[in-house]
């Protein structure tokens, strides 16, 4: 079963969640100034999912992400400083400023890429998992996808494929209730996305995505099973995004006060802090120190991103085979 969390693990989990939150809150503020180019989809509110899953993974395991990918990247170990530069369109960015927020990738830490195509990641993880299986390596692959993406044919095909090939894949459905302005109550025909697992011959489970420990346990069990050759699983986490679909979304489709109520009562960082301090495992002072550390890291990443150079004409036709 899932290993028990040490004090170091708990501190790491908190640091990861706080880093994601700080990164996203900062982007939210900076986007409003008009300086950040392109589409930016924030992951704030969903930190327990990426963190709870990736705490069970190593750099040799793979994840595929989505358009809302910053949290997955950070939790999988992509450097936030390079990420910030990428989002600002700088040459020093994770992808040299060629990809931007929706395409951050770092294969060196097993991060197959954020994705601009909804549902694009499902088949890809079947491939990385197949490779691990054929090479007799104990590596697993996780596909993060949203409630909206859960209706995409690629996801259905990938779930079936993973099952018939008995692949070490975890399909991690992040059900935040909306795909753009469309509620999952409308778009998903069953009560829970996890209910679909049985149709593909795999176990499915729905967990509270605001609770780091619940995600960690459920994902850990599925990952453990996959590593041991037990095949794929579907894990659905129910959570909420704190901001619009993308920055600039007026969110008139949401109920008034919807997000505030969640922030006040269910917030993953709040719950985590309460639990580890009241159990006496971690002190508030330790958490405060992490907060300060993370704030300095993100502040520094923004200062650097702003002053870093942009790519130039010489970069336009590199990284592509040009015969014309």
């Amino acid at each position: 079963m899932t290993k028990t969390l040490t004090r170091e693990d708990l501190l790491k989990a908190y640091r990861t969640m706080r880093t994601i939150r700080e990164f996203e809150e900062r982007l939210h503020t900076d986007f409003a100034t008009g300086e950040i180019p392109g589409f930016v989809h924030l992951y704030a509110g969903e930190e327990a999912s990426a963190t709870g899953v990736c705490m069970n993974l190593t750099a040799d395991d793979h994840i595929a992400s989505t358009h809302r990918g910053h949290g997955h990247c950070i939790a999988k170990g992509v450097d936030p400083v390079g990420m910030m530069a990428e989002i600002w369109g700088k040459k020093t960015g994770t992808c040299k400023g060629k990809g931007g927020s929706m395409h951050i990738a770092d294969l060196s830490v097993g991060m197959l890429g954020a994705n601009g195509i909804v549902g694009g990641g499902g088949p890809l993880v079947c491939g990385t998992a197949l490779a691990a299986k054929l090479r007799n390596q104990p590596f697993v692959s996780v596909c993060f996808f949203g409630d909206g993406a859960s209706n995409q044919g690629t996801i259905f095909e990938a779930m079936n494929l993973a099952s018939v090939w008995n692949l070490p894949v975890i399909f991690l459905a992040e059900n935040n209730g909306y795909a753009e302005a469309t509620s999952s109550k409308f778009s998903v025909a069953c009560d829970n996305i996890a209910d679909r697992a049985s149709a593909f011959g795999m176990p499915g489970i729905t967990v509270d995505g605001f609770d780091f420990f619940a995600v960690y346990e459920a994902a850990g069990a599925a990952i453990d099973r996959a590593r041991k050759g037990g095949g794929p699983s579907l894990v659905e986490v129910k959570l909420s995004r704190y901001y619009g679909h993308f920055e600039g979304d007026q969110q008139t489709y949401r109920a008034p006060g919807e997000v505030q109520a969640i922030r006040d009562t269910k917030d993953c960082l709040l719950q985590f802090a309460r639990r580890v301090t009241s159990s006496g495992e971690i002190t508030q002072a330790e958490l405060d120190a992490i907060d300060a550390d993370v704030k300095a890291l993100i502040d520094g990443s923004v200062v650097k991103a702003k002053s870093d150079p942009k790519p130039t004409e010489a970069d336009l036709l590199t990284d592509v085979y040009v015969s014309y």
Partner: protein
Amino acid sequence: MARKITYQQAINEALDQEMSRDQNVIVMGEDVAGGEGSPGEQDAWGGVLGVTRGLYHKHPGRVIDTPISESGYVGAAIGAACVGMRPVAELMFVDFLGVCFDQIFNQAAKFRYMFGGKSETPVVIRAMYGAGFRAAAQHSQCLYNIFTHIPGLKVVVPSNPYDAKGLLIQSIRDNDPVIFLEHKALYTMEGDVPEESYAIPFGEAAVVREGHDVTIVAIGRMVQKAQEAAAELQKQGIHCEIIDPRTTSPLDTDTILESVEKTGRLVVVDESHPRCSMASDIAGLAAERVFGSLKAPIRQVTGFHSPVPFSDTLEELYIPSAAKIIAAVQSTKEYK
């Protein structure tokens, strides 16, 4: 009566008028209304950039939000068209056609011919295309050339509000599958548009500017860039004729070739990648059919053979500029 409205409003108006005229016209796509099943406002988005806003309340039951299942709903639109509906399916970004390409090019495009003329497929697939939004490689492509390659599809690329309205109305009334592509940088462009309904026939290019020195054929948003270039070149005494094909399939080859015969020089401006593009296609047609009239090599001004980059410096380099068009025109004039 004509009044000034935007490209985006012209598209909305065309849909509205056709939906009022014919109950078989329906609009479907992801968040074409928005708010489905949610606790807040219905018609919360009206399309990702608000193009279909308001239609949901005006035409109850006929503006249909879909799950994110492009193969499913684009295929359903095609099936409904086979039995006489006139669906307008919205793909949001043309890049997403990758998800549902089979339904478009193996299904819709082939039916009429493959079934020996026994079926018609009056479906319209709307999508936005083009670079300039820092939207990176998977949200910035042109791809009209890919559809143009497929027999059975008609492909429409309006460059201004007037054409957008008239061509969309024609698209809805046409009995073949139509790919209707809207450049996202044109949505805010204003122009004179009649209030009443009108249809612009397919395969009729517009001569946007007359001139006798050089023919510039420009596609979609590139018409604007060509106009900028032509205004500048006029000051240098070079008179450009600008032709906007308006539909790449069918293509009005007569208007293009007659102009080239008159000017003897051709520059084709196409935002897409250069290989197998509209630019190379039109250049090839001219080289084959009016070779004897050419006084200089044909020039193509296009994007690069690379995915569309994210960073603004790179994306601006990627998109054909007026300066590049000017240089290309000058080179055809200077050729000895």
